[in-house]
């Protein structure tokens, strides 16, 4: 059969006993077919015939012939290479890519599910932003940590002021001369000793006694019994300072030991709002954008990219064209990306702008969150790409159960995301997309907030704020290469790209072997 692939025609495959009732007539009627086949056989024989043997020629003639053939081949290749760009294979691929991408985008536009999914994402972001705006606009009552704003004896002078002048804050008859010293308003003695930290992770000697209740500077009686007897309780050999135990490589603070009454009454509202704002950026970035929107949008928009076409029986319109199946999958994903990346960009940009105006800042707009938002954008893009490719591939592999497998995969990703938040070094999480997306945000947040661990530690010292839990919960330093956020960032990006390429490869291989019934 291999020698002559058409010889079966000479013995037509028919049901025995039927055509044989009148074999002459039927055979004669199939004359047209047989003639075609005979022609075809001859043509194939010609096409596969060996060229004349060079032995018939002299050796120099054969060599010259070979050289001419070689020259002609080079000429042909050169002509091919210098074809106008519009006729090259690449530009034709471009046309196909654009056609499929455009088609996919237009198809999305006509589906209600697209608008529902994207609309839910927008409403979700809008609601979270409303909560954020309310939190930022409402004031926080500052706490008088050292209690020196109180006038315990009722003489009109707050305790802090009485200590400076050496009078007894517990005796209403002991107070500065009202004709010489006007009583301070109590607010002056709230938040009067802020935290002084220069941001230098290599300098352990920090802190300054702004109100003088450790050093006695500015006091009438600097030998007052109100001043601490031991001014170096942190035992660093320096009186009235704060000793920071830090790691300058990882830019982290492990411990803060303050001498008595140093930096003991900072501006609580400033710290609370700052830590809340950062917790929002990190929390919403990791859970809201990177994970929830990053996984739900692809789940509903990418799983059916090819699967729905297979199920509806319309994929053959595209597949019946001279375009490789692997290309179709890639270009469909390109259409998906052309929709979801701008969508994520708009959502994140709007969030960044709104929070930029509402967040605590010395200027009208808070610019120094931008690198954190860029990290969130990058993580969202890569996670949407990875999840989209994975879900699309699951749809191709199992059109019937693809969505359910994708949902199960989503549960796994959710579990890994939660573990990554609490224990980023847990090895199992490295097998998840969410871990690496979150790691990207970790890396960029360190670049955006170099004093992050300082804020967490300070927030931790003031348990009454209760805000440190949120910031501690959402913040993690890079875990891939400790202390090197840039390298960790590159590795995280690389891993997500590898996940995507691997899923694409599996999807393409599966589609190439798929029968379209």
């Amino acid at each position, binding site marked *: 059969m291999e020698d002559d692939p058409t010889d079966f025609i000479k013995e037509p495959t028919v049901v025995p006993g*039927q055509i044989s009732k009148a074999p002459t007539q039927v055979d004669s009627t199939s004359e047209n077919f047989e003639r*075609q086949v005979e022609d075809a056989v001859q043509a194939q024989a010609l096409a596969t015939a060996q060229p004349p043997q060079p032995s018939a020629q002299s050796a120099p003639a054969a060599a010259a012939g070979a050289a001419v053939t070689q020259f002609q081949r080079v000429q042909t290749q050169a002509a091919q290479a210098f074809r106008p760009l519009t006729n090259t294979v690449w530009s034709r691929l471009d046309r196909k890519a654009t056609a499929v991408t455009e088609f996919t985008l237009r198809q999305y536009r006509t589906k209600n599910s697209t608008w529902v999914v994207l609309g839910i994402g927008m409403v979700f972001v809008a609601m979270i932003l409303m909560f954020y705006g309310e939190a930022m606009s409402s004031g926080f009552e500052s706490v008088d940590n050292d209690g020196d704003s109180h006038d315990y004896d009722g003489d009109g002078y707050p305790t802090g002021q009485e200590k400076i002048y050496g009078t007894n804050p517990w005796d209403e008859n002991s107070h500065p001369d009202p004709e010489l010293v006007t009583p301070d308003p109590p607010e002056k003695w709230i938040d009067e000793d802020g935290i002084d930290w220069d941001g230098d992770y290599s300098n352990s000697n920090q802190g300054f006694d702004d109100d003088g209740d450790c050093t006695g500077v500015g006091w009438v009686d600097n030998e007052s019994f109100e001043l601490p007897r031991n001014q170096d309780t942190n035992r660093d050999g320096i009186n009235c300072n704060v000793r920071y135990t830090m790691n300058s490589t990882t830019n982290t603070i492990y411990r803060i030991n303050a001498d008595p009454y140093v930096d003991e009454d900072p501006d609580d509202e400033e710290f609370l709002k700052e830590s809340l704002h950062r917790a929002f950026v990190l929390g919403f970035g990791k859970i809201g954008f990177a994970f929830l929107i990053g996984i739900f949008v692809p789940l509903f928009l990418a799983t059916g990219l090819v699967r729905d076409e297979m199920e509806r029986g319309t994929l053959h319109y595209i597949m019946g064209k001279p375009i490789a199946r692997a290309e179709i999958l890639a270009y469909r994903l390109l259409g998906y990306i052309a929709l979801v990346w701008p969508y994520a960009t708009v959502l994140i940009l709007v969030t960044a702008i709104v929070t930029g105006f509402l967040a605590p800042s010395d200027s009208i707009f808070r610019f120094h969150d931008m690198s954190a938002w860029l990290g969130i954008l990058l993580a969202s893009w890569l996670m949407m790409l990875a999840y989209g490719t994975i879900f699309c591939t699951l749809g191709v592999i199992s059109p019937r159960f693809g969505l359910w497998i994708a949902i199960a995969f989503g549960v796994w990703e959710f579990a890994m995301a939660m573990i990554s938040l609490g224990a980023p070094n847990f090895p199992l999480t490295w097998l998840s997309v969410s871990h690496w997306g979150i790691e990207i945000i970790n890396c960029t947040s360190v670049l955006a907030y170099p004093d992050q661990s300082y804020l967490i530690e300070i927030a931790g010292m003031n348990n009454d704020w209760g805000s440190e839990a949120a910031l501690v919960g959402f913040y993690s330093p890079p875990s891939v290469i400790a202390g090197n956020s840039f390298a960790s960032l590159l590795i995280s990006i690389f891993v997500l790209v590898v996940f995507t390429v691997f899923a694409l490869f599996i999807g393409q291989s599966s589609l190439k072997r798929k029968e379209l019934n």
Partner: protein
Amino acid sequence: MIPDLSQVGTSETKEWAPVDEAPHIMLDHVTKTYGSVMGLNDVSIAIKGGVTGILGQNGAGKSTLFKLIVGRLQPSSGNVHLFGTNPFKNPAPYSRIGYVSESEHLYDWMTGLDFVATLARLYGYTRDEAKEKALHVLDFVGLGDVANKEIGKYSKGMRQRVKIAHALVNEPDLIILDEPLAGCDPLARTTIMNVVRELGASGKTVLVSSHILSEIERITEQIIILHNGRLLAIGNLHAIRELLDKHPHRILLRTDNPRGLGTAFLPHEDVYGVRFPNSDELVVETNNLSSVHQALPRICHESGIRVTAIENPDDNLESLLGYLVEGRS
């Protein structure tokens, strides 16, 4: 643009030169099973040129045959060659074929022009080229005036024609039409049949399937009959008809005097019996259909009995298959 490196050697990234002399379609002992169900059973054919009708009842394997040819399915055993290439593994020959599936699903949100032009761009045409070609083929199938109407608003016949238009946009050498007349109204059927005949006349190779004998008869004489996944017969439809005519056949006549008319038919040498299934029906049984048909006007005229209808109940695919498979008429 994402070049598909894995397709090197199978997509257009490699020069592909079809062997023009080879049959456009060649199936070599092809069998296709779906689990335990036999879709196609040891079919071998070679086709090049002309219009070929694929006849078979529902489930005979027509669509399976077409899906194998266009690479939607791969055979369980045997080989399929489309322009000398395995169509399941290599999409390059698709540039020379146009395929109209039996699927009724279309992109209803697209206009006819969008649909044809978008798919035309997958042949590598520019946007303008694709639009120009799309308009041309839509005109050819008679949809020029509704090209900008949404497909969802098309009638059944228009939907079939837009599918045909999309299959013609690349000026293919081989056109495969799976049940193109199914569900169409008479006008659409006539239009589609004319289109198919024109394509055949223009030198294209056309494969068209149907389960209705008379439809195929109006399009082509060259047929392939499939039955239960097997290739039952290849040949000229008229020759097969002649073969049938020589075997027991029935002619049904409606008249108000069947007995009188039956008496008039009995002397004819090729009539071996008459029956009266109803009070107004006469069935004439013959071994030579064409001979009786030739004599029929004269007999009716001479008898003076009015005949209101003449039918050939055996002139359908079921009877043809019954004869070919079981030897009954």
